[in-house]
C-alpha cells in the first residue's frame, strides 16, 4: 500500500515534471494570471528574445492601477494610464486573453479567476501577486511569485520549486452570529504569527471551515500569506462543485461530471502526516480587529490594545511602543474607544457579493458617521449588487459606490487614505503606509467595517445585528 498523502502532496506530484537530485522540482503551471505589474516580466522575456509558451493558459486582468471613478473618461494620470495600456499591449502581442478596463468581466484578478470558472480544483495556479493563495479555496495549489518567476512561467509554463512543509490548521465548532471568515483568518494569524507559516503550505480543515461558503473560503485562503504561508487550501467538496457549475470557463455536461469525480479524490488521506498541526476552537472566536502595523496585531473587539510597560521582553515592548506610536493609540486603550476617519470596503480579501451583503445588512436604514468607499470585487459583482439594491443602501448611508479594482487596499490607482487618517478596512494589510503614506489601517470583516462606519469608532457588530438577518 502506498504511503498516505496530504492534499499538498497529491497536488504537488500531479504537477511534477522532473525532480533534480537536490530535491528541487520543475512544476507544470495550469493557470497563469497576469496584471499590470507584469511589465518587468514581459521585459525580461523580450530581452531574451523569447515568446509566451502557452498563451491559452495565461489570462490578463487589469486591476492594480485601474481607476474606480470616472471610467467614461480617459485616465488623467499619464503614468497610471501607461500601466494599463502596457498590459493591453503585452497581452495583445502575446495572444493572451485580457479582462481589460472596459471588459464587463473586469475586476480584481483573485475575484475574476474564480468567478469565471478559470480557477478549478486540482490546478496549479500562479500570479505575480502574493494573494494568489486565494485560489487555494478550490483545492488548487496556488501561490504568488515574483517578476523573475513570472518571466519563467511566461517562457516555459513551468516553475522550479522546493517542496514546502505541510501545515494543517483545523477549526472546529460553530461560529457565532456576526463572526465570519475574516475573523477566523485574523484569529489564525494572531495565533501562529505573521511569519508562523513561513516555509509551509497550509491546508485548512475542520467543521467551521467546511461550513464556510466558497467566498468565505477564499477570504480565509487569501489571508494565508499574512501568516507567512505562500499557499493555503481547502479540499474541494459539494460546496466547491456547486459554485463551479455553469461558470463560463468551467467544464460543462459530461466533462463537468468527470471532473467532479476526479476532484472528489482531492483530499488528504486519513492517516496522512503533517509537519505541523494547529487547532482552534471555532465556538469562541469573536469579531476581531487589528490595532497595530502587522496583521498578527489582532485582538477581539472587546479587548484593549497592549500596554508596552507591562511587556517583559524589551524587544517586544519596543515594537509595541513603535506600533502604537505610528497608530496614534494610547497604551491600554479600549479598542471600541478608537475613533475612525473613514472606511473602505473592497480588495481581493472582502469584496465579493456576500461581503457586500454582510456590510449592507448593517448599513441598511443607518447613516455612516464617516466618509467611505465601496469598491466591488468585479464588474460582475457590481452589477449583481446593483440588481439587489445594495448600491442604494451604501449610497443612502453616505458611502461612495465605485467601480472595481485593487483600489484603496494598495492605493496605486490613486485611491489613498490621507496621511494621519484612520481607516476601518476590509483589506489584508495594516502595514505602515499601505493605504497611503502616513495612513493608519485597522483590518476587520465587512460587517465590522459597517459597524465602525455607523458608530464612528471601532465597534462590535453583534448588537447592531439585533432583529436583522446577517
Amino acid at each position, binding site marked *: 500500500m502506498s504511503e498516505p498523502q496530504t492534499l499538498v502532496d497529491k497536488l504537488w506530484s*500531479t504537477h511534477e*515534471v522532473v525532480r533534480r537530485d*537536490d530535491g*528541487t522540482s*520543475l512544476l*507544470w503551471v495550469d493557470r497563469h494570471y497576469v496584471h499590470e*505589474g507584469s*511589465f518587468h516580466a514581459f521585459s525580461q522575456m523580450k530581452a531574451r528574445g523569447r515568446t509566451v509558451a502557452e498563451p*491559452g493558459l495565461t*489570462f490578463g486582468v*487589469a486591476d492594480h492601477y485601474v481607476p474606480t471613478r470616472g471610467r467614461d473618461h480617459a485616465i488623467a494620470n499619464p503614468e497610471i494610464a501607461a*500601466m494599463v495600456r502596457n498590459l493591453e499591449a503585452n497581452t*495583445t502581442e502575446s495572444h493572451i*486573453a*485580457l479582462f*481589460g478596463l472596459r*471588459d464587463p468581466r473586469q475586476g480584481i484578478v483573485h475575484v475574476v479567476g474564480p468567478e469565471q*470558472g478559470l480557477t478549478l480544483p*486540482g*490546478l496549479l495556479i500562479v500570479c505575480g*501577486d*502574493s494573494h494568489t493563495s486565494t485560489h487555494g479555496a478550490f483545492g488548487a495549489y496556488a501561490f*504568488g*511569485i*515574483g*517578476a*523573475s*518567476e513570472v518571466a*519563467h512561467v511566461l517562457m*516555459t*509554463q*513551468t516553475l*522550479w520549486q*522546493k517542496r514546502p512543509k505541510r501545515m494543517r490548521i483545523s477549526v472546529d465548532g460553530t461560529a457565532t452570529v456576526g463572526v465570519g471568515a475574516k475573523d477566523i483568518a485574523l484569529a489564525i494569524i494572531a495565533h501562529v504569527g*505573521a*511569519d508562523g507559516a*513561513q*516555509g509551509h503550505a497550509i491546508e485548512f480543515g475542520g467543521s467551521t471551515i467546511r461550513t464556510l461558503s466558497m467566498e468565505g473560503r477564499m477570504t480565509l485562503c487569501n489571508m494565508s*500569506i499574512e501568516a*507567512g504561508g505562500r499557499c493555503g487550501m481547502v479540499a474541494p467538496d459539494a460546496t466547491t462543485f456547486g459554485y463551479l457549475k455553469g461558470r*463560463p*470557463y*468551467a*467544464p460543462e455536461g459530461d*466533462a463537468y461530471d*468527470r471532473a467532479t469525480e*476526479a476532484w472528489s479524490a482531492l483530499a488528504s488521506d486519513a492517516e496522512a502526516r503533517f509537519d505541523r498541526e494547529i487547532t482552534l476552537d471555532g465556538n469562541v472566536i469573536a469579531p476581531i480587529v487589528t490595532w497595530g502595523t*502587522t496583521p498578527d496585531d489582532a485582538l477581539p473587539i472587546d479587548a484593549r490594545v497592549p500596554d508596552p510597560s507591562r511587556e517583559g521582553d524589551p524587544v517586544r515592548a519596543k*515594537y509595541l511602543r*513603535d506600533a502604537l506610536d505610528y497608530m496614534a493609540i494610547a497604551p491600554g486603550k479600549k479598542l471600541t474607544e478608537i475613533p475612525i476617519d473613514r472606511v473602505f470596503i473592497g480588495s481581493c480579501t472582502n469584496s465579493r457579493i456576500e461581503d457586500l451583503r454582510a456590510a449592507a445588512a448593517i448599513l441598511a436604514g443607518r447613516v455612516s458617521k464617516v466618509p467611505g468607499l465601496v469598491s466591488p470585487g468585479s464588474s460582475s459583482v457590481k452589477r449583481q449588487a446593483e440588481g439587489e439594491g445594495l448600491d442604494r443602501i451604501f449610497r443612502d448611508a453616505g458611502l461612495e459606490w465605485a467601480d472595481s479594482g485593487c483600489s484603496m487596499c*494598495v*492605493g*496605486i490607482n490613486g485611491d489613498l487614505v490621507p*496621511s494621519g487618517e484612520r481607516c476601518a478596512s476590509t483589506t489584508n*494589510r495594516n*502595514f*505602515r*503606509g*499601505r493605504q497611503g*503614506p502616513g495612513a493608519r489601517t485597522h483590518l476587520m470583516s465587512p460587517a465590522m467595517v459597517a459597524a465602525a462606519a455607523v458608530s464612528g469608532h471601532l465597534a462590535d457588530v453583534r448588537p447592531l445585528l439585533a432583529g436583522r438577518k446577517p
Partner: protein
Amino acid sequence: MEKFVQLSAKACPLPFSNLNTDQILPARYLKWPRSKGLGTVLFQDLRFDADGNQKKDFPLNQLLWQSAKILVAGRNFGGGSSREAAVYALYDYGFRCVIAPSFGDIFAQNAVKNGLVTAVVSDADVADMAAAVSSNPERPVTIDLDRRTIVCGDRTYAFEIDPVSRNQLLNGWDDVDLTESYRDQIVRFSIEHRARQPWAVPARAGTQVS
C-alpha cells in the same frame, strides 16, 4: 546573474522586525522601470519624512552606513507583497546580503534570482551583530557563502540558507537556461497531463477585451 562567493563590507543595523516589502519599496514606486533608479527610493518612507527631509534616527541615513553592502535586520524581513522590485531596490542601492532571523518566502525566492544573499541567523545573533556593527561601524563584516559563515566583530557566526539557493548564488545559475535543458520532458509532460486531466484546460478560448 552575478555570482556571490565572499564579501567583506560595511554592515548597517536595521534591527526592526517585519520590514515588509511595502517598507522596503513603497507601492507608489512600483510603476517605475528599474532604469529609473529604484535604489534611490529604497526604504523611502523610513528614510525621509513627508517633506523629503532625512530622518536622523534611521541608521541608513548615517554617512558611514550609506556605503554598506550588508543589512542586519529583524525577523520576517521582506514579508508581504511579492514585488520583486523590493529586491531590485536593495540590490541597486548596493546591498548584496541581508542577515535576519527569518525572511518572507516570496522575497527569499526573488532575492536568489537576483544575486542577493538571505542569511538566516537566530534573534540573539542578530542582536549581537547589530550591537557589534553599531559600536564599530567601520569594521567590515565578512560573508562566506561557501562555508556559510559571517565574521562580525570578534566572532564567527554560522548562518543558514536553503542549499539550492546557495548553489545557485555560488554559481550564478540562470533558471531559464537550466529549464531549457529539460525541454523534451516538459513537452512530454504537458501532453500526458492534458490526457490525464482534460478539465485542466479552460473550457473555451479566452477573448481579448481591453
